[in-house]
């Protein structure tokens, strides 16, 4: 169980999350920030529900408090050129 990878982008296991929680007696938000779980390339689109569930279990925070790291736009990775390309209407 401990070696189960929870966040594939950042390669974080269940054991990693539990260890951080134990070491620092952290809040759910702090565990996410310290482990970077859900903060990788996919922006947590794959692992977020799992991470939130696990952190809620570990910290006993009620779920509404446990989710301050929101899904943030852009929702999918996008290249710099697609964002700032010069083809767009300028000015």
């Amino acid at each position, binding site marked *: 169980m401990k070696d189960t990878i929870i966040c594939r982008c950042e390669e974080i296991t269940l054991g990693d999350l539990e260890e951080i929680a134990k070491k620092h007696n952290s809040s759910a938000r702090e565990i996410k920030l310290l482990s970077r779980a859900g903060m990788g*390339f996919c922006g947590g689109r794959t692992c977020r529900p799992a991470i939130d569930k696990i952190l809620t279990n570990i910290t006993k925070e009620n779920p509404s408090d446990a989710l301050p790291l929101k899904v943030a736009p852009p929702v999918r990775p996008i290249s710099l050129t697609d964002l700032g390309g010069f083809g767009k209407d300028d000015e």
Partner: protein
Amino acid sequence: MSAKNYEVAVIGGGIVGCSVAFYLAESGLDVILIEKNDIASGTSSRCDGNVSIVDKDPGFDSHMSWVSQELIEDLSKRLDRPFEYRKSGSILVCDNDDEMQAAVDWVKTQNEAGLKFNVLDRNDIKSESPFFADDIPGGLECETDSLINPYMFCYALVDKAESEYGLQVKTRAEVTNITKEGREFKIQTTNEDVRAQKIVNAAGVWAPFIGKMLDVDIPITPRKGHILVGSRQQPVMMRNVMEFGYLMNKFGRERIADKRTTEHGVALVLEPTESQNFLLGSSRQFVGYDPTIDIRVVETMARRALRFFPKMNDFKIIRAYTGFRPFTEDHLPIISEVKEVPGFYIAAGHEGDGISLATGTAKLMEEIINEKTETIIPKEPLSFDRFKKSEVYA
């Protein structure tokens, strides 16, 4: 309600509040830190992590930054939890020959003030990063600048102060009202009331709301900024880079740039993070407390980044976020007692420099509260009274 009466209550668990609480607790005072949400959940986790002199005006500003850098270096050895401290120096790049000329002058002035600045030429810039545009005329570097992870720094401070200096921390406790009863403050929060003899208002852009509870008008306004998180593909560069135009923006000086860049207050900042991602910034706008990501601003920023890093066109942006810089009219923070309300102090208003200046701020606040005659930096330029004077003479 807890019957306990603290010597000092620090309101706001951002980088300023955490630093102030740390030095106060270390000095032996009985301190409580009160935070509305979680540690580092305000501006201090929605920003870059530059501890920089490179962008400070020579004189008081650069001196305060330098003092703060020394304190951070000291803390990097004393705190138990690492905070991604990297003393790599930082660079500014120029867009055009006008800026290059200004940069050369800037280096000269900073050198005369004894600071470690060097001019960089076209080739130096090339060797900083293979992704830079070929037509960048040059730039400059400041050797002593460093990078930290601001929220990890907050955790490290709180952790040490809690375990060794007896700091009490109360999170998920929004201060809703403050009354003065004799020489003591009664602080109402959403998670029990607190009593304290002194209060330090370190609530960043929210400091004015705390001030209002005691009828004190605090002239701080939110200056919104956007940041994009870029994904690691290949290492872009080792240290932080800003464009020289950033200085022009910051002090509202004349800068040559297109309309949209000017309107959104966009200037390039690229910060390599320890996780090997990079942060791309940033914008500067006065649009109240609305945290929404404005895609137009994001596009302007991406375009500005491509001006300096055209070869990063395929790099992927994975996230964006916004933060509020606590802006004051003269770009200096307020680190001061409030004469009208004895026992009430302010440590807020650091605009885009709160990460750089938090430690110097906190040390000074500790000295003010402990009534020391000698202070680490002069306190007059930072006094709350300075705003009253300008009202009278305006």
